[in-house]
């Protein structure tokens, strides 16, 4: 009977609402890219593709999952699981060729439950951080793959291993690593080199750990880390770890979508299982924060099942649930401006924004569609059958004109710059 496959490929958003002037060869160092907003700063990408589609640079078989890639300095980092050996692993590949530069693996018994891997590492020039399906946090030397330290969140924080396994992707900051922990603490900041805890946010009100990822934002003039639980939203002071505010809002079964910061100190959150969507506003009154609803969309209005929307030109863009996944442009008051009805349906496919274009995957078929980023209507620029499916749900990564994407069992790198 049933099941659920909300695979927690988690996408979420950060506080960068507009494209900035871009750099060729920009890194994609973590889940949702450099600013964690789903936006690449690259330019000069193809707006039309040949009939055969963009050139395929390399492919690699992967164990069943939805784990996307991070890209730093021409290296692709991704998680994997070998069912024949019962080994969980991290791979570092050449972005140009796909050749394995280093890999790490360890014995880890993980029963497939709607696949196994579903998270993106976070990397910089020195470190690669990974959270495995059973909530083990690992730090590797980015050059060699040597494990420098690891911390079992289940032991350290009593983090519950969630159904369908961990969906959280760690947040990398210049001076620290941020992870949600659930259990005894709801969030923690760790020293990148040692794993030593810098602060923790006690979970005194027993909030439920989710599949979402922590998102950075500045709200009321204060840098914060946002997190969504099954019980609602919260904001933590980036400097101290102090819990600044919470907003109670029930989400059902799983909260794989991450909080999306919106201009005007607003935060949007949407989720699956008839949870609907909500927009809140957080006010800072003399250092006292309070969250209040702006609007609340119930089941059957609009929601995204898995992926966090992207903000562009004062609007939100995402694949909604209705009619097998319509790519939708929403205003900040939750009204649908346009969608892909009658033109394309994307199931649970992922998407990213680059060079004024959305790359959107059909979650069932592996068709990649290039859609003009605008607020007036659906305009498809190109399409190509880059994967064959099934379950093409993993988030994409873009660097140096090379788009890395995957379906359930295959990772592919395609040239979308045509250089």
């Amino acid at each position, binding site marked *: 009977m049933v099941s659920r496959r909300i695979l927690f490929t988690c996408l979420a958003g950060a506080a960068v609402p507009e494209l900035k002037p871009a750099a060729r060869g920009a890194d994609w160092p973590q889940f949702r890219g450099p600013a964690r907003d789903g936006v690449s700063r690259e330019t000069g990408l193809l707006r039309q593709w040949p009939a055969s589609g963009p050139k395929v640079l390399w492919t690699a078989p992967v164990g069943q999952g939805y784990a996307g890639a991070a890209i730093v300095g021409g290296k692709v980092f991704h998680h994997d699981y070998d069912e024949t050996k019962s080994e969980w692993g991290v791979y570092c590949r050449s972005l140009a060729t796909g050749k394995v530069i280093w890999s790490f693996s360890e014995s880890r018994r993980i029963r497939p439950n709607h696949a196994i891997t579903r998270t993106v590492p976070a990397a910089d020039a020195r470190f690669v951080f990974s959270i495995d399906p059973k909530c083990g946090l690992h730090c590797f030397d980015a050059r060699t793959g040597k494990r420098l330290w690891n911390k079992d969140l289940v032991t350290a924080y009593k983090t519950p*291993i969630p159904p369908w396994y961990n969906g959280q992707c760690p947040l990398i900051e210049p001076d620290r690593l941020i992870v949600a922990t659930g259990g005894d603490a709801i969030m923690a900041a760790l020293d990148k080199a040692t794993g030593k805890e810098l602060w923790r946010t006690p979970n005194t009100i027993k909030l439920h750990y989710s599949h979402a990822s922590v998102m950075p934002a500045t709200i009321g003039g204060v840098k914060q880390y946002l997190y969504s639980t099954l019980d609602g939203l919260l904001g933590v002071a980036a400097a101290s770890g102090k819990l600044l505010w919470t907003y109670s809002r029930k989400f059902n079964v799983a909260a794989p979508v991450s909080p999306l910061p919106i201009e005007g100190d607003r935060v949007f959150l949407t989720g699956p299982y008839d949870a609907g969507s909500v927009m809140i506003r957080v006010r800072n009154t003399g250092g006292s924060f309070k969250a209040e609803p702006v609007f609340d969309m119930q089941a059957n209005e609009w929601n995204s099942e898995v992926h966090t929307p992207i903000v562009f030109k004062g609007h939100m863009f995402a694949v909604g649930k209705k009619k097998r996944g319509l790519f939708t442009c929403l205003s900040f008051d939750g009204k649908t401006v346009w969608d892909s009805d009658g033109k394309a349906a994307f199931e649970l496919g992922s998407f990213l924004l680059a060079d004024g274009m959305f790359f959107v995957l059909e979650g069932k078929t592996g068709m990649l569609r290039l859609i003009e980023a605008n607020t007036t209507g659906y305009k498809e620029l190109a399409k190509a059958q880059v994967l064959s499916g099934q379950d093409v749900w993993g988030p994409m990564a873009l660097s140096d004109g090379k788009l890395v994407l995957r379906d359930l069992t295959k990772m592919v790198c395609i040239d979308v710059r045509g250089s």
Partner: protein
Amino acid sequence: MSLRATRRATLKGISRAAALLGMSGAAAFLVRKAEGRVVWQIDTARCINSRAGEVGVKVCDLCLKECVVTQSAVRAVNEYSQCGRCNICPAYFNVTSAVSEKGVPSEKLCPRDAISRKPIGEVDPSDPANNFYEYVIDEAKCDGCGKCVMACKEPAGLGSIRLVVRHNLCVNCNSCAISTACPKDALTQLTVPESISASSRPAHSQS
């Protein structure tokens, strides 16, 4: 030939054609009946509760409400080979209910408590949220309301549950009341060999 005569001839021709069609239809029905048993069945590709493409719609309970049989002749069945066996099954749990101490929804979805479950396969006490379960529908309790079918639909479910007409319960009306009411015309008549129709359960059902 007058215009009136032409019209009369045309009408007569249409009447004859209709009569012939009716007789041939009846004949075809009798032939089909002679070959086996004509039964009603639900086309899952049309049923609004199970068909692909229908999400975000209210559950249809006409199979329960319209059937002339007490408790309806329609039942929900779970295709085990398609089932995800999840710990948190949206057809078993009311996913909108509060989370219990065990970390699962505190209420069940089925209003008649017709679905039960038991753990199967490797049971890992350290990872209880990812243990697997076998979900069984008690057909003595099920009344074909369709709620579990709708909840099992993608993307939340895998679509392993569907509604079927149980032929041992169906009185095989010539004009099935569910068929008349069904907005998707999902009730169809099939001819099945007597050897199969004599069985109360299709081979594909839960076992």
